[in-house]
């Protein structure tokens, strides 16, 4: 096939999809009672990879896929039973196939040593199956040299063909055959109708027409045979050479007992017994209704930049709509029912368009989760710890650009969990835990964010050890008073990666600080929770891009900023009675039976002046995702409105205390505050004081 380059990338994209089918199919086959169709789908996936690879001359891939497919065929035709070993082999073959595809894509060579090993195992299985007979290639017996005339220089070939009904039924056309013969040389054709029965004895099964063709010229018999390559078995064909004199055509042949020149039904004999059963099973198949609901819905591929442009435009639309609302309000028209109705319907429409656009770019996390299965298998092999992965919510959708960037952090976390989280089998047994460790990977949408969790049922964080390492490395002052949650947080500090411990998965020496940075670069945050003896859970919270946030616009100095409504509990004008002070400058607010810290946001963001008393301005009581509460002191509150989130990362990077930015109706930029981060960044000292105060007062 010529000019393949433009299709190469298409083939590799298809391979990605086929590998997905293969992986999920194999996983289904691990469960008891899997459906037969799954095996067929797995076979087809490997078969299709092979077919495409053949077109591009990727012989290593073709060779491996062919053997893999042969064994899969044994399973799907019930000539071999599934077993745990076969399943494990299939997993390894699937991984090997993935590697072969990756190296073919990059244009390099694959690791033949590994491949040969797997091929040997596959071959062993193929050989033990004695139902695979040798495929006998048939050579047609249409040539009967004994009947040919004495060998004189052939001046022409005599061809006689009597099609049987099967020839007509298979869409072959004698006229087409004659045309093809004519291309070989000058021909003289004579139709014989002697055997055509009279109309009242007409039998469609025995058409009775024969053609005699004489071909003049230097024509080889092989060329004539190739014309009849598809019809050898459904006609009576004879080819002979004439040396100039005309020869009577051999007598008409139309007896039910075919002569040797006809290709007998020997084809049936050579088939393995099972194959005979198959045709019978398939012929009475009814016509399937075209409304087969399992047929794939039509899709189109769209370039990502087009979708990005669409996203930006819808963002503009939301902003303009907000602007319009404002203008109308200022003009005093917001009471008119027509105006209200009109605005409402625009708002609703914009909202629907926005959701649709977000849905276009959103993709389920399934791909990422599938990759994690393989990562887990490798980690389990490397550490020798039996472990299985449970995935929940793989249909949860996340923006496409995020999907790829999640693979690295999740890989690190899973490896980390297997390596450090899970105890070894001996310990687990001693503790009465099931030998096989479980790592749960889950994803869900929660209040405008995507929440992904990686949790293990291992021993939890060894806080004593963590604290020790932190002190040794000078990350905390010796004797510092830290609560359990604060010790857990130490794992995220750069310089914490416990390189001293020999990790079975080392090679990268990746610390959790890198994971945190990668997640933060996505605009998200990662938190850790651990219970001794029970396990550890990492939680990742990611924003949804092009999210529209309900925000409270606040004034800080001469800047306008936005506080997400979801965090806001209440706002109040403080009076002296509610305020308490401890230490220097630390202020507390008595609220709902608790004492919560007051944080002056002007101070936090370095917006002078910072000396305002807590009595001026407004206090906003917030509760973060992690249920921490605080009161933010701001100069003033404007109003509440929907804003479009614009990422800062692309152009600048993370700003502490700020999650993103938005563009207000008047074109001004307002930063969106991240309450969680601000509250978390309270110093440990302060936290301790809070806790002490709360328990005393």
């Amino acid at each position, binding site marked *: 096939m010529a000019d393949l380059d433009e299709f190469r990338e298409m083939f590799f994209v298809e391979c990605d999809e086929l590998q997905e089918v293969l992986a999920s199919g194999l996983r289904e086959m691990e469960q008891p009672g899997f459906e037969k169709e799954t095996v067929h789908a797995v076979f*087809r996936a490997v078969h299709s990879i092979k077919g495409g690879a053949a077109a591009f001359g990727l012989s290593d891939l073709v060779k491996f896929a062919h053997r893999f497919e042969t064994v899969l065929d044994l399973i799907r035709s019930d000539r071999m039973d599934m077993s745990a070993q076969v399943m494990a082999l299939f997993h390894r073959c699937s991984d090997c196939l993935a590697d072969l595809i990756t190296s073919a894509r990059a244009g390099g060579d694959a690791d033949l040593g590994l491949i040969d090993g797997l091929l040997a195992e596959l071959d062993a299985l193929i050989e033990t199956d004695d139902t695979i007979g040798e495929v006998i290639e048939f050579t047609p017996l249409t040539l009967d040299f004994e009947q040919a005339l004495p060998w004189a220089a052939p001046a022409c070939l005599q061809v006689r063909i009597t099609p049987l009904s099967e020839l007509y039924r298979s869409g072959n056309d004698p006229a087409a055959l004659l045309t093809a013969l004519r291309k070989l040389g000058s021909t003289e054709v004579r139709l014989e109708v002697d055997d055509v029965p009279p109309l009242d004895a007409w039998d469609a099964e025995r058409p009775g027409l024969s053609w005699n063709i004489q071909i003049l010229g230097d024509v080889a018999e092989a060329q004539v045979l190739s014309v009849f390559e598809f019809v050898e078995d459904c006609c009576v064909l004879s080819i002979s050479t004439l040396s100039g004199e005309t020869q009577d055509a051999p007598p008409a042949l139309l007896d039910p007992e075919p002569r040797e020149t006809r290709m007998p039904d020997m084809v049936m004999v050579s*088939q393995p017994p099972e194959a005979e059963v198959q045709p019978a099973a398939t*012929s009475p*198949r009814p*016509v*399937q209704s075209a409304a087969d609901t399992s047929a794939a819905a039509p899709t189109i591929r769209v370039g990502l930049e087009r979708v990005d442009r669409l996203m930006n435009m819808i963002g503009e639309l939301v902003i303009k709509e907000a602007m319009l609302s404002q203008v109308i309000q200022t003009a005093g028209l917001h009471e008119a029912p027509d105006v209200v109705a009109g605005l409402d319907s625009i708002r609703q429409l914009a909202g629907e368009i926005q959701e649709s656009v977000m849905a276009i770019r959103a993709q389920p996390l399934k791909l990422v989760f599938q990759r994690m299965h393989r990562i887990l298998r490798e980690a389990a092999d490397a550490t020798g710890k039996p472990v299985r992965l449970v995935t929940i919510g793989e249909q949860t959708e996340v923006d496409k650009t995020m999907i790829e960037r999640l693979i690295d952090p999740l890989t690190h976390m899973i490896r980390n969990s297997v390596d450090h989280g899970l105890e070894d089998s001996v310990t687990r047994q001693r503790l009465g835990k099931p030998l096989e460790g479980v790592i749960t990977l889950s994803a869900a949408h929660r209040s405008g964010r995507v929440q992904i969790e990686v949790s293990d049922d291992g021993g939890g964080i060894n806080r004593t050890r963590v604290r020790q390492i932190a002190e040794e490395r000078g990350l905390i002052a010796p004797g510092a008073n830290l609560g359990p949650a604060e010790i857990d947080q130490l794992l995220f500090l750069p310089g914490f990666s416990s390189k001293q411990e020999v990790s079975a998965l080392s090679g990268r020496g990746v610390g959790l600080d890198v994971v945190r940075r990668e997640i933060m670069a996505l605009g998200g945050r990662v938190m850790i929770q651990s219970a001794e003896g029970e396990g550890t859970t990492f939680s990742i919270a990611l924003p949804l891009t092009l999210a529209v946030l309900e925000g409270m616009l606040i004034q800080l100095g001469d800047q306008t900023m936005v506080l997400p409504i979801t965090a806001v509990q209440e706002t109040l004008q403080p009076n002296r009675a509610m305020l308490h002070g401890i230490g220097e400058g630390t202020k507390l607010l008595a609220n709902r039976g608790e004492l919560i810290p007051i944080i002056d946001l002007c101070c936090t963001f370095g917006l002078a002046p910072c000396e305002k008393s807590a009595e001026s301005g407004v206090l906003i009581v917030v509760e973060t995702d992690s249920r921490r509460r605080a009161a933010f002191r701001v100069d003033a509150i404007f109003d509440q409105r929907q804003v479009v989130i614009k990422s800062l990362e692309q152009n600048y990077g993370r700003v502490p205390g700020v999650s993103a930015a938005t563009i207000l109706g008047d074109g001004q930029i307002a930063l969106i505050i991240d309450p969680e981060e601000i509250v978390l960044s309270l110093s440990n000292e302060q936290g301790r004081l809070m806790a002490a105060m709360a328990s005393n007062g």
Partner: protein
Amino acid sequence: MSVRILAVDDSPTIRALVSKALRAAGFEVFLAADGVEGLGCLPDADPHLIITDINMPHMDGFGLIENVRASGAYDEVPILVLTTESGSDLKARARKAGATGWIVKPFEDERLIAVIDKVLGR
């Protein structure tokens, strides 16, 4: 009037390759991804020739061929089977279903066109 060919294969890459070869030779090409889709677009395509893969989801090549022949409306339409196998049992099965001939993958574009021409009598 151009000659219409319906090509059925579950691999988008193969569909693209076949389509390109056929269009370059002046044929009008219709594509389907499996037997069900192929049957579905028969009335619209009204092809002069059908090329089909064997292993496809929902309805495989044999099923497609059998159904096409059973419909009675396309008896004279040649059907070519695209296959990576060249075993005789496959050919027999194809013939039994009603296939006209076969082409082995990977194929040269010229070979594909030559076989099509031959079977169509061009």
